[in-house]
């Protein structure tokens, strides 16, 4: 990490555990990025047969610290209610791997890391806006390198929600032999126009922030805090539902009983501002631009002439597809479409829509039925795989 960056990026310098591949990675855009660094964490023990590995894929602003204290924020791992000893993704039984995505900002190759030239030599400044376009498939290829590096030929399961679900689907489509079971949660096989639109609002907020400096904020010693914060606020609304917002905040005011028309702040505003301001302390704006673009590009069926079932033709992988009833970002219909495509491919698939009023965020929260179903799916898969 460059010293200059540490002065402008308010993320503490953390020594992330990572695997570095000197030969790099050829990206969908045609560019090769070398060396390739994949920051990752593992939990549990890999068994002798190397057959109990479960890869967890994180969402847009997630990271590899799935089941432990996040070193930057000090908060518990984002899926620590689901991944751990005795939990549905049982680390007493499974060897759980979670990697920071390509383009991320927690140690994997991305806009915050030092730029390299065609020969793989560092050029003494971060990639910033010059970081190439990456796709969900590029992220998955990078994870595949890590999995091979760990000596694992076949993953027992790939599990992920939201953008993590996109990666899980991409894994099953690209490396069917390497995925015994696949659990895409609260996701879709493509990013919808509405979702792209919301992402674009976030990107526009970052672009419009004078502190973004055309992407070279690291050079100017500035930070597009306002823009990144607004992007997070908009995105956060899409992660919730109207009923969840009403239940949590209603029309309550922050620190007042009635509207006075004097600088009143509704509780929901205060909550969103808090979400925005904490986000800028843990996420890089150029990473946000890179990863939202990768999600926007995602369209698994487009790679197969528009027929999603062809992406899974002849697959032996077993699937668990789940959606949440109040999720309007990745609505149930998208999960049902994935399920039907898998049916057309005669794949072994389970699908349920879980009742929740918590919106897209539900996949991260304590949803007992979801946890029971995913746990059952993994236990059944382990049994079938002889683990």
């Amino acid at each position, binding site marked *: 990490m460059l010293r200059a960056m540490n002065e402008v990026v308010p993320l503490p310098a953390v020594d992330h555990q990572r695997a570095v591949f000197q030969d790099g990675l050829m990206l969908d855009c045609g560019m090769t990025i070398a060396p390739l660094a994949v920051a990752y964490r593992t939990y549990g023990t890999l068994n002798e047969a190397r057959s109990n590995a479960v890869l967890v894929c994180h969402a847009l602003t997630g990271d590899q610290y799935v089941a432990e204290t996040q070193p930057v924020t000090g908060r518990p791992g984002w899926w620590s209610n689901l991944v751990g000893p005795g939990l549905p993704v049982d680390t007493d039984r499974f060897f759980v791997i979670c990697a920071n995505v390509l383009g991320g900002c927690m140690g994997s190759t991305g806009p915050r890391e030092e730029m390299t030239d065609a020969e793989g030599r560092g050029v003494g400044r971060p990639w910033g806006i010059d970081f190439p376009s990456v796709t969900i498939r590029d992220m998955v290829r990078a994870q595949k390198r890590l999995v091979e590096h760990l000596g694992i030929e076949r993953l027992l399961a790939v599990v992920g929600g939201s953008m993590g679900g996109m990666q899980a689907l991409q894994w099953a489509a690209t490396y069917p032999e390497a995925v015994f079971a696949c659990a895409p949660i609260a996701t879709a096989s493509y990013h919808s126009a509405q979702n792209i639109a919301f992402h674009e609002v976030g990107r526009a907020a970052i672009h419009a922030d004078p502190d973004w400096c055309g992407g070279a904020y690291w050079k100017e010693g500035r930070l597009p805090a306002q823009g990144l914060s607004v992007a997070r606020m908009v995105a956060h609304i899409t992660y919730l539902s109207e009923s969840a917002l009403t239940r949590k905040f209603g029309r309550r005011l922050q620190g007042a009983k009635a509207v006075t028309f004097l600088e009143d702040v509704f509780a929901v505003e205060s909550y969103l501002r808090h979400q925005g301001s904490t986000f800028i302390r843990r996420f890089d704006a150029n990473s946000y631009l890179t990863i939202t673009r990768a999600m926007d590009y995602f369209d698994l069926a487009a790679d197969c002439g528009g027929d999603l079932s062809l992406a899974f033709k002849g697959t032996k992988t*077993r699937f*668990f*597809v789940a959606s949440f009833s109040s999720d309007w970002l990745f609505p149930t219909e998208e999960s*049902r479409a994935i*399920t*039907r495509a898998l*049916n*057309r*491919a*005669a794949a*072994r*698939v*389970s*699908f*349920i*829509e*879980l*009742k929740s009023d918590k919106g897209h965020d539900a996949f991260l929260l304590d949803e007992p*039925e979801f946890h*029971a*179903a995913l*746990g*059952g*799916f993994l*236990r*059944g*898969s382990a*049994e079938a795989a002889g683990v």
Partner: protein
Amino acid sequence: MGMKPKEPIRYVAKNMRLDLRLIAEMIPDGARVLDIGCGDGELIEHLTREKGADARGIEIDMAEATRAVAAGLAVIHGDADADLAHYPDAAFDYVVLSRTLQAVERPREVLRQMLRIGTHAIVSFPNFGHWQIRWKLLSTGRMPDTDTWNRPWYETPNIHPCTLLDFMVLCEQDGYAVDGWLAVDEHGRRAPWRRSIRLANLFGEQALFLLRRKG
């Protein structure tokens, strides 16, 4: 399937619901099975564990589907009318529809889909030709109210009742071979009128059919 046409179906009672036990008996080891209206997956779990079948299910009730998935079974939330069209031809050896045909929107289309995606279909339904139904309708002039048909006409989910004979006619009309049939009572116990379809139609509370695609 070692069964000769029209031969009555043997059954052995164990712990499973009796009608499901009868159905399980008809399915050979290692078969690919789709159970439509699988509930919490009792039949597919049995077929998977006991017969090494590749058994999957569709269930319309979300709570039941969730229980099945939590038990590690390949069950999707869906329904017979909407979801069968998405499976490829001959994807299964057996497609099972137990006590559901009378409740689907388009029973004929559902049957057609079953025998498109499966080489065999196993169908059970409550027999509307049972003597009690005939008698109640004749004697009271009101819609029958029996153990099987126990919901008033305005709220029954059973919108397409038929008799054993009606079903036979439809199979004939649509070109399905009847490889076996059985009339059973409400608890799934085999009824003794297996030699005569007309007696079965009068005394059987539930009908169970094994169909095959011709040709």
